[in-house]
């Protein structure tokens, strides 16, 4: 594909996201359409990653550091289209940061093992990354809520993130059994994943505790998203040491 191995498309997406942010804060019209353009270029770049190995292998498309900005952009687009939330543009800030990280990250593909060549693996990576994106966006909106005391849209995003994460745990368990013969493995990746699910399950229970009003829940959302960020990005940085093909 024409975008395969050409990282300029990622840089172009970054440029468009930056322009969208400037236009949003400058209250210029068209910020949303520039964001859409960035999302399209980002999508083309992602699709091109499928051919890094010389044959089409979808795994690199769903690699976390590169899929995460796409997910955040998609969430911003959905929030804008769903209407009623004027803070959609603030999500371009984490979008820019995650895209910058993707530019810094090793861009080649980790050669897939036979056990990763299944739709269950792809479904796992997609739902997990989408959930992470919801958690990070939820934290950003929680910061907005604390500073402006406006509507608490962060809560809905965290619920959606929890549901996506629950799906990722199930498809991950299926994939793990198919490949390795266990639904849960005592390894760092699995245990961190389970811990994140429990932390957000705890968040769901806060509504039943009168001491946890919306402001305290916003703080909780910010703190746990930070824990998720540290755990996940530590793993992304570790993966940079793995041998890669195509960059």
């Amino acid at each position, binding site marked *: 594909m024409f975008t395969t191995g050409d990282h300029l498309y990622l840089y172009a997406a970054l440029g468009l996201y930056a322009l969208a942010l400037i236009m949003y804060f400058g209250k210029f019209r068209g910020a949303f359409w520039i964001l859409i353009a960035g999302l399209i270029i980002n999508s083309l770049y992602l699709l091109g990653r499928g051919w*890094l*190995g*010389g*044959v089409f*292998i979808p795994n690199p498309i769903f690699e976390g550091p590169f899929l995460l900005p796409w997910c955040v952009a998609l969430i911003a687009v959905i929030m804008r289209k769903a209407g009623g939330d004027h803070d959609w543009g603030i999500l371009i800030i984490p979008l820019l940061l995650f895209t910058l990280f993707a530019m810094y990250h090793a861009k080649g593909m*980790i*050669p*897939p*093992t*036979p*056990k990763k*060549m*299944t739709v269950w693996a792809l479904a796992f990576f997609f739902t997990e990354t989408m959930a992470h994106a919801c958690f990070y966006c939820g934290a950003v909106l929680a910061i907005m809520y604390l500073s402006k005391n406006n509507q608490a849209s962060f809560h809905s995003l965290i*619920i959606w993130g929890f*549901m996506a994460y*629950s*799906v990722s*745990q*199930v498809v991950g*368990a*299926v994939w793990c*059994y*198919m*490949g*390795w*013969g*266990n*639904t*849960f*493995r*005592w*390894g*760092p*990746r699995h*245990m*961190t994943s*389970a*811990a*994140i699910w*429990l*932390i957000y*399950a*705890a968040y769901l*229970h*806060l509504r*039943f*505790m009168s001491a946890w009003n919306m402001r305290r829940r916003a703080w909780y959302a910010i703190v746990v998203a930070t*824990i998720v960020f540290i*755990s996940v990005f530590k793993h992304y940085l570790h*993966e940079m040491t*793995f*041998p890669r*093909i*195509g960059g």
Partner: protein
Amino acid sequence: MLKKIWMFSWNFLGDIRLSFYLLISAALFLLIGAFYSGMNYSYFSKLNEMRLQDWMIQRLAAEPGITWWLPLLLIVLVLLGVNTFICSWDRMSSLLPGRKEVSCRRFLNNITPSLIHYLFIIVMLGHAVTFMLGSWQRIPVKEGASIKISEDFPEFRIDSIENDYFPQDSPLKDRIRQTTVSMRSPKGESLELSFLNHLAFKGYHLHLDMVKKRKDKRSRQEIIEQQKKETCNKEDVYHLKSNQKKKSRKLLLLVIDDPGLYIIISGFVMILILMFWYFVEIRKRNNV
């Protein structure tokens, strides 16, 4: 007096605040465990091939500095299960008397969180069954060799082992895309096994695995060095060229007896279905 103690214990163990603290504690111990297992990957990977109690007898006391979190995690999870049961029981008990005062759909929506919690307990019990009663055998597979898993399992002969590689003109050349093992029993039953395509046979699940061969004689220092280098990335195992000179690949048949598997998977699926239905109904109700 006894009734007072019982009521106090029941209320304490079923308190929603306890749920919160137990969830956070379990998450904390899992994060600690993730840290230690990341630093000692080989040591903890054995836990995936042994029953939990056997591993704890062998390895828990041997290295308490890196395993102390595991018994605490198990205690917290047991308490979480008890807390979840009591909390859900109380909720259901309060909802059931009023079931005729609301519509059937509304009633089902009201009890759905409790059902989800019961299913969560069932999934946790399924995991406990797997960890404590499961068995994992690893049998080397070689072409022409015979394998016998157990007395009630027929002896199988390995007819052929076929490796399918990525195209030689691609950057992924010399890497295995798939391996297919054909086996035949004396009675003519034939089985074909490949990565990700496991087989269910006579109560066992058969999977394929590939590992690096270890040198027969290794010094303690070599073993420690090798264990330190081990990570979750196994791409070099399937790369022929890096292993060809040393012939250091070994194909294994994983013979698994997992009594908790179907409990876990069916519980998970039911939780997802109920969860999605519940949140969609809540959103509809809030939008009305």
